[in-house]
């Protein structure tokens, strides 16, 4: 684990840790919580053959939408890509392998890896098309599907506020998948609009404790996509 006092990292250095072929979890539901600055740096550095795990595909010209357009993502594990026509086209044309999960199961599969387990047993989707390909077992006289956990090599997360140890506080609906992904990836790079000295965050207000975070990158909200991008209304 990265030492507590060595986490504050330049964005180029942090993203340069990611090799070609890496699996990367990316926080965000729509724009809120998406680590736009980290993704733009990943686009600039050129890593390819990536597997990305993200709730959605953002929109064509922002976030992972840019990486998909640039052909840098081979495989996307997601829940819904309805706001990104480019991603749908890439999927339909076979350029992008897409693995879809119901949203709550996707969240839970990520959290399950974050809790250090193999998987969980659920009744969600039994008897529907979603159940196809899942292994099922009988317990206490009922059928349950095994949902294996989903882990990743890296997670890129967005917080509103952090301290230099890597304690994170999220804001609004930007929480979404970020704390789960911070638990589930081997190396976690967090961007935050403000990075303060340890001691500024009341212990009860910390959403993600610093034990899960390897690198903290401070980003300027005024130059981040968060600061200028309108969402679909």
């Amino acid at each position, binding site marked *: 684990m990265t030492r507590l006092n060595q986490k504050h990292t330049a964005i180029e250095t942090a993203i340069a840790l990611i090799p070609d072929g890496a699996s990367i979890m990316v926080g965000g*539901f*729509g*724009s*809120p*919580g998406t680590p736009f600055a980290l993704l733009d740096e990943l686009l600039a550095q050129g890593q390819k053959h990536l597997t990305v795990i993200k*709730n959605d595909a953002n929109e064509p010209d922002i976030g992972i939408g840019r990486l998909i357009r640039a052909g840098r993502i081979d495989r996307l594990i*997601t*829940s*819904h*890509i*309805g*706001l990104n026509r480019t991603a*749908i086209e890439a999927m339909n044309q076979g350029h992008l392998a*897409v693995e*879809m999960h*119901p*949203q*709550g*199961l996707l*969240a*839970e599969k*990520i*959290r399950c890896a974050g809790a250090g387990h193999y998987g969980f047993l659920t*009744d*969600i*989707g039994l*008897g*529907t*098309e*979603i159940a196809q390909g899942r292994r099922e077992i009988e317990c206490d006289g009922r059928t349950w599907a095994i949902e294996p956990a989903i882990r990743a090599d890296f997670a890129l997360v967005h917080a*509103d506020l952090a301290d230099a140890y890597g304690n994170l506080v999220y*804001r*609004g*609906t*930007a*929480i*979404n*998948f*970020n*704390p*789960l992904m911070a638990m589930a990836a081997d190396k976690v790079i967090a961007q935050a609009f403000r990075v303060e000295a340890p001691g500024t965050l009341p212990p009860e207000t910390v*959403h993600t404790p610093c034990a899960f975070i390897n690198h903290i990158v401070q980003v300027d909200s005024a130059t981040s996509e*968060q*600061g200028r*991008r309108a*969402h*679909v*209304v």
Partner: protein
Amino acid sequence: MSSDQERLLARAAREVLPGQIVNLGIGLPTRLFHYLPPDMDVLVHSENGVLGSQPVAHGAEPDLEMIDSGGAYIGTRPGASVFDSALSFAMIRRSRIDITFMGAFEVDQHGNLANWKIPGKFSPGIGGAMELAQKVDKLVVLCSHNDKHGNPKILKQCRLPLTALHCVSRIITDKAVMQVTKAGLEVVDIAEGLDVASLRAATDAELIIDETRLGRF
């Protein structure tokens, strides 16, 4: 928005009781937001992780970090909370949402719902619909009674891939309010000016209709 949709939404809003927790699906149900009395003790849940959302005040600058699951900017009302996606769906799977409203491609008289995939045409992913449909006690479908070609959407049996089985409590369309019961689809209300024969003609499902008890909306 058409007057049919406005009438549908006004009727749908009457399904919500004070003190309830309500989830609004993407599309038509999202607009229900504007039909709930603003002083009503109701918390709107959005599965991206907020309980207690409300429309952004007219003319106010939206908060870029606050959206609903359809991507629309929202505000929060007193008593609101925000949380991660695992907790949000725990709330759903534990049936802590009192009522959810969803659109439909097809819905049938057994309460089956299809609203996420049209094979070969439309498959952006199921999002949160499956867990909401399977686990929320009261699922109200809001949809047009017929598709744009005039074909019925209220069927004897769904043909498209299902979102969930036996999940729908009530269906509200521009033409009728229908309750899913063990006996079949009971018509509760019929649209002003519509007669029963026309309703049956516009519907594939078998309808149970007691004209002496039929409401109008």
